[in-house]
């Protein structure tokens, strides 16, 4: 039945070439842990993506309850964490997943670095990967404020103060992040917008570029 459904769609949209490009590609022996156990280092990229998907899904559920304003933000997180069924688990996934995604991405970066996989012709993919790294750090920084507890508040205050000490453009960065002169109502709403719309949008675009390039170029050969 699936085959006839596939054929029906394929006849109209000619998706087979697309499908072949996306999914039907070889996995060479030297990256397959089933053949060489040490090849598990090649799993970190996939795991990073896996955790990123968890982050996106759990984040989507969190926004069902989260309210980005200074009166209700903390109360909504409190309610979500302690009253909503499985809310604590979903928030836990998002909280610890944020750390785990950094760890996995870090290991993936080290693998790519120490296997020299960033060398020609894959320079652009390395640069895009580093941009993904910075976007992830930005997501970590903006997401830290959202629970609106003391830890969130003062860490953000210090973080923005550090950004403000940059010469010439520092005050502008500070004002952009604060949305005023202090960490307040404006800061929370704009961190929420950056965390939920701007950075994930950029992240998805970068991930698409990252995967497109690896599909085009294939995995770097054995050492």
């Amino acid at each position, binding site marked *: 039945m699936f085959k006839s459904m596939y*054929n029906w769609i*394929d*006849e*109209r*949209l*000619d998706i*087979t070439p697309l499908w*072949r490009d996306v*999914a*039907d*590609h*070889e*996995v*060479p*022996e030297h990256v*397959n*842990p089933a053949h060489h156990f040490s090849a598990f280092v090649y*799993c970190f990229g*996939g*795991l990073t993506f*896996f955790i990123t998907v*968890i982050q996106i899904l759990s984040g989507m559920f969190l926004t069902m309850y989260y309210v980005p304003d*200074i009166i209700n933000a*903390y109360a909504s997180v*409190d309610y979500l*964490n302690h009253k909503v069924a499985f809310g604590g*688990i979903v928030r*836990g*996934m998002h*909280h*610890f997943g*944020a*750390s785990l995604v950094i760890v996995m991405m870090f290991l993936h970066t*080290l693998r790519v*670095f120490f*296997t*020299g*996989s*960033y*060398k020609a012709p*894959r320079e652009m993919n*390395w*640069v895009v990967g*580093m*941009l993904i790294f910075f976007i992830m*750090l930005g997501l*970590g920084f903006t997401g830290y404020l959202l*629970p*609106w507890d*003391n*830890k969130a*508040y*003062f*860490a953000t*205050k*210090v973080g923005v103060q*550090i950004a403000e*000490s*940059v010469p010439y453009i520092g005050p502008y960065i500070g004002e952009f992040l604060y949305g005023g002169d202090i960490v307040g109502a404006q800061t929370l709403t704009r961190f929420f917008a950056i965390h939920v719309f701007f950075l994930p949008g950029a992240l998805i675009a970068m991930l698409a570029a990252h995967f497109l390039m690896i599909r085009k170029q294939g995995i770097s050969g054995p*050492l």
Partner: protein
Amino acid sequence: MAHGHKSNEKVVYVGDSRVKKSNHPNIPPDYTSYPGKSEAFIPNFLLKEWMVGCVVLVGFLTWTIAEGAPLGYPADPTNAAFIPMPDWYFLFLYQFLKYPWVSGDYIVLGTMGVPAVMFGGLLLAPFLDTGKERRFYRRPIASSLMFLSLISCVYLTVISWNHYTHEMEATNSIPEHHVREEKAREAHEKGQEVPSATKQEDKAVALVDANDPAMDIAKKAQCVTCHAADLKGNPPQIPALTGVGDRLSKEELVETVTNGRGGMPSFKGTLTAEEIDQLTTWLSKQKAPAE
């Protein structure tokens, strides 16, 4: 169908669309001819990878359920005692900026110079390390720089964490999410309702001896202008006077009324010593009823 299904046309489209009608059989490529033991990504490899993913997911969920996401007390900008702490992956940068040669007068070096060189170097690594050699032990400069950066980051993170724990010990403070968790657990064990962090201000304490003549002194001295007619104050700037006896002793109250405190003016000139004594005696009786 403008063109119909005439078979003598060179390209046959599906309906009036621009999708060519293909007559290729839909057979996936055969990987046996590829070098080594290659296999297809879907479904062969993805199934194995999915199993690894499941193990990771189970471990991750176990961790999540066992640990629980931390949540402290609501943000209070006037809290001057709170020790700020970024998330662990920013600690290396946080610690780095504490060193005298990258802060103060040299802050430009700390926020721009060194990070720009480090992150810029990382971003542009493929253009700096252009040799053909890929094995790390044949690339001594690139590899040793990376090892050095790694060691520094780990070192800075550990130092920062130690610094934080020492600071917490020195100020005798416990992370708020631990305090909160502990209180919730204690309340649960006693069978009480878990205290809500957001309802702290709602605990209204009734005025004790509202008809005491001291209340008139309070009105005369214009205490009520700031602390409100019902003496509930306007927290957090102006504290409530109801229940003040739980927080301050008679001597402290005399001191506060006589000399002022924080934003509160001195009432030495407005009230006589006798009136202050009468007022503070009454205020020190303002305690929450014993449970």
